[in-house]
């Protein structure tokens, strides 16, 4: 009896070793014959062997042999199924090989940020307006309270086409054009390209994008300006961004403000921070309450309506958001730069 048990154990081990080597039908048939052949198969031999045992040992031995037969049978069935499955029809596949990715174009980083800015204002119910890049002196300057020959115009180095036509130095003319056509309430942003007579260097460009905005309605106050711009900046950066409003002087707003955010790079913690120069603050927006003269220029009664306007440079915002060191990167169109934003 012990001999039989040992023999079964030995055969079981041999089978377990042989099974993984079976890679095709021929090998499977060979294995099947080896164990189940009616003539010389191991199981046939085991049954033969059993015949020689004492009658009282036979039931236990029968159980052992049958159990082994079931094991062999089910293993052979499993191998059969696996051989029929396609993965076994050729050499096995190396799943660690690289997959086939699809190629998705990258947005230009300035337009990416511009779109994020637009999305926030759209959520607040602002409309998006645009206008020509080639503007008249009236819309670019005069209607915005820059009299002819005023030195304030020197702050904007203007590219001229002729005495009257110029490349707009800010997108504010769009606000004038909208106010001429629509009556309040007005709640708009006017993103777009603007131009200055500047030679490109790390901090200057002759062409860049601005997003400006305008709100005109009954009872609009400076407190609303603060609330709206704080909401915007928190949505653009994060809820706990530090925000500071400082007085400033613009010809088209009274009072005027400049808005700083806490440095997005050093968070005001590094004295030699390259981005905020150790001040801890980054200038991000110009804003103010619309000058009554600007309202009069478009026939809106400043006693009935009030409003605020604001503006920001998109490249600066993109620089702060992505830590881009040099403004010139934006318009070189080097795809090694632009492709990075396919992930954003």
């Amino acid at each position: 009896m012990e001999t039989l048990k040992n023999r079964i154990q030995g055969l079981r081990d041999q089978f377990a070793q042989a099974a993984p080597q079976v890679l095709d039908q021929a090998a499977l048939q060979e294995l099947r014959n080896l164990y189940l052949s009616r003539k010389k198969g191991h199981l046939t031999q085991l049954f033969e062997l059993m015949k020689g045992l004492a009658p009282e040992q036979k039931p236990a031995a029968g159980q052992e042999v049958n159990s082994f037969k079931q094991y062999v049978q089910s293993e052979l069935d499993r191998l059969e199924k696996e051989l029929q499955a396609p993965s076994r029809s050729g050499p096995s596949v190396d799943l660690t090989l690289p997959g086939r990715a699809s190629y998705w174009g990258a947005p230009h980083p300035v337009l990416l940020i511009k779109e994020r800015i637009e999305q926030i204002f759209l959520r607040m119910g602002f409309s998006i307006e645009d206008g020509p890049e080639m503007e008249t002196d009236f819309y670019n300057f005069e209607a915005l309270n820059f009299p002819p020959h005023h030195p304030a115009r020197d702050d904007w180095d203007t590219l001229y086409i002729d005495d009257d036509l110029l490349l707009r130095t800010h997108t504010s003319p769009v606000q004038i054009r909208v106010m001429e056509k629509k009556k309040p309430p007005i709640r708009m942003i006017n993103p777009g390209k603007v131009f200055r007579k500047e030679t490109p260097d790390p901090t200057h460009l002759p062409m860049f994008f601005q997003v400006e905005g305008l709100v005109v309605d009954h009872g609009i106050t400076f407190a609303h300006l603060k609330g709206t711009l704080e909401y915007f900046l928190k949505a653009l950066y994060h809820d706990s961004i530090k925000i500071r409003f400082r007085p400033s002087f613009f010809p088209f707003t009274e009072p005027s403000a400049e808005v700083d955010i806490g440095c997005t790079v050093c968070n005001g913690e590094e004295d030699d921070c390259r981005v905020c120069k150790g001040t801890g603050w980054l200038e991000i927006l110009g804003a103010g309450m619309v000058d009554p003269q600007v309202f009069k220029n478009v026939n809106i009664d400043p006693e009935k309506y009030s409003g605020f306007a604001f503006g920001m440079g998109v490249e600066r915002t993109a620089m702060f958001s992505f830590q881009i060191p040099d403004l010139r990167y934006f318009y070189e169109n080097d795809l090694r730069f632009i492709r990075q934003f396919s992930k954003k």
Partner: protein
Amino acid sequence: MKISIDWLKDYVSLDLSDTQVISTLNRIGMLVDEWEETEDDTILELETYANRPDTLGHLGVARELAAALGIPLNMPDISIVENDKQIAEHFDIQIMDEDLCPRYCGMIVSGIEVGPSPDWLQKRLRALGLVPVNNVVDVTNYVLFATAQPIHAFDLAKLKGSKIMVRRAKRGEGMRTLEGRDVALSQDMLVIADEKDPVALAGVIGGEKSAVSEATRDVLIESAYFDPVSVRQTWKKAGVQTDASYRFERGADIKFPPHAAALAATLLTQMGGVAYQGMLDVYPKPARPKAVVIRHHRTLELLGAEIEEAFVTKTLKDLEFQLKEQQPGIWQVTVPTFRVDIEREADLIEEIARFFGYENIPSQLPMWETVDLSQDRKRSLETGLRQLMFHQGFDEVVNYSFTDPAREELFRRDRGAIAIRNPISTRAALLRTTLLNGLLQTVVWNKNRGAEGVHVFELGHIFSQDEEDKRELQAMGMITWGALEAPHWQGPGLTTDFFHLKGTCESLVASLGYQAVSFQSQDHPFFEAGHALALHLKGTEAGILGRLKPEILEAYDLNEPVWAAEIDLDVAFEIQPHVFHCVPVVKYPSVIRDISFLIDRGVPYQGIKEILDGLNLPYLERHTLYDRYTGTGVPEGKVSLSLRFVFRHPQKTLQAGEVDALQEKIGKALRSNFEIQLREGGEN
């Protein structure tokens, strides 16, 4: 502008650290850009504002600080040593052009020994980065940077006669400036002249002839008010900008000239000079002070902050405004003459807000009402276009709107380019007439940096002009060159070709919701002959696509094909799109028939498609070209085309016989329009 904290202390008793001074200035809008600590002083770089010329001197900045801190402002001491001569008996000033010079003051200081200034004065000027010259010149500079009032000193001995005339220049007059530059004068320029010649360009710069030198003993001090626009036009024409013109063009304080002259005389007499008695002050029509009404309730209405009346009145008084109450809560405010920026109530409210502190104004979101429910169609189309291009694997770029005339010439077509009068460089002298020039440069830039394929697009404005008009159009450009994908272990990557570009254009048109689209062969100056198509939307030409012509590519040293397209978005967006509605899904099975035939290679596919579309076959769901073959078994000059037709009846299963009839109709139509040979086995 540089401001010395030590100098400010001459006018306000500052008991504060530098950091406190800086934050006080920032808080009221006088932005300190940066600062530098020196041995016994701190020099601030203060932002200047075009409408605040009063802060272009230390006194004006000190006035702001004094108001912010609620402490008094100390005006500079005036104490002049005089001789017994009355100036009026020895000298005369005549203003001939009052419109350009409403006020002119003169004082004479005699017996000066020209030499180095005392140390304290040299130190003041050095702190601002100025180089001391001599005591007289240094005093004029000192007064300018102290008070923002520019003054000038003439060598009295070098003036011809004993009279100054303030007049417009005469035809043909000229003058050599202090800096030794000859300026031709025109009749709209205001000059200071002695009895013979111009001796100074009013408000801009003095002349060389009357300049103070080592030999000077007696000086005439000029302290005047000149018209801002006139000064600006004069310096621009003469090409000389000075600290004086910078202040005059922004607006000086018309009340201040006598004080500035007296301050200069005080300093010069401290250095050994003796002044003539009195001052010549020609001021024929004294300016009436500006008066502005401010209503207390407007501060709440504009600022959204409750500010007490007492704060309003105190702030304005601290800033030297005079208030007269007209009614409770309403004052008439007399504006000091140095505040040229204050004209309206809003300007006064700005002052109150500044000193109240922006941080003390609450933050509120307005109760928004819906403004406009209409959809912004153009914007949503643009957003859709960009997404589609990303999906097609095109990267987005932005090129400059200006171009190099030599490069633009390569892309010349039936429209003129607009020139910029004062371009940043001659290579950026035109406004672009096409996006393709910039896009091609993007290809070249990236190819030169190792790219193996560049597929980019740009949305932007292009400009053109004809005799009548200058135009600005919105366009979309795309360009494709080289490898579309990196090689993969499963096979080499695809390379771009015309059909990649065309497919992108087709998807683009579909995404805009246009169905009636056609492509027509067209000759176009950008493209190789026979390699361009015009894109038509509902019969209107809306774009062009093709293979850029070799002359253009050669100019960029490119010898591989580049395909590009430009779509006129103003035209495309104008066309009303097909109204979308959903079609029910039919549950009956389709019947598919494939038809293969041989046809002359020269027959354009578009012709075949138009015939098939023209049949208006019932139950035809779609037909597509699924194979195009030349080679073994296809005779020379022929091509084998295989088309698949999918038929489906909306209400029942189609019978073979019904489809046979339709298929027969297709065969007949093809045979009657083209010389074709149906291929056996092409049906199943």
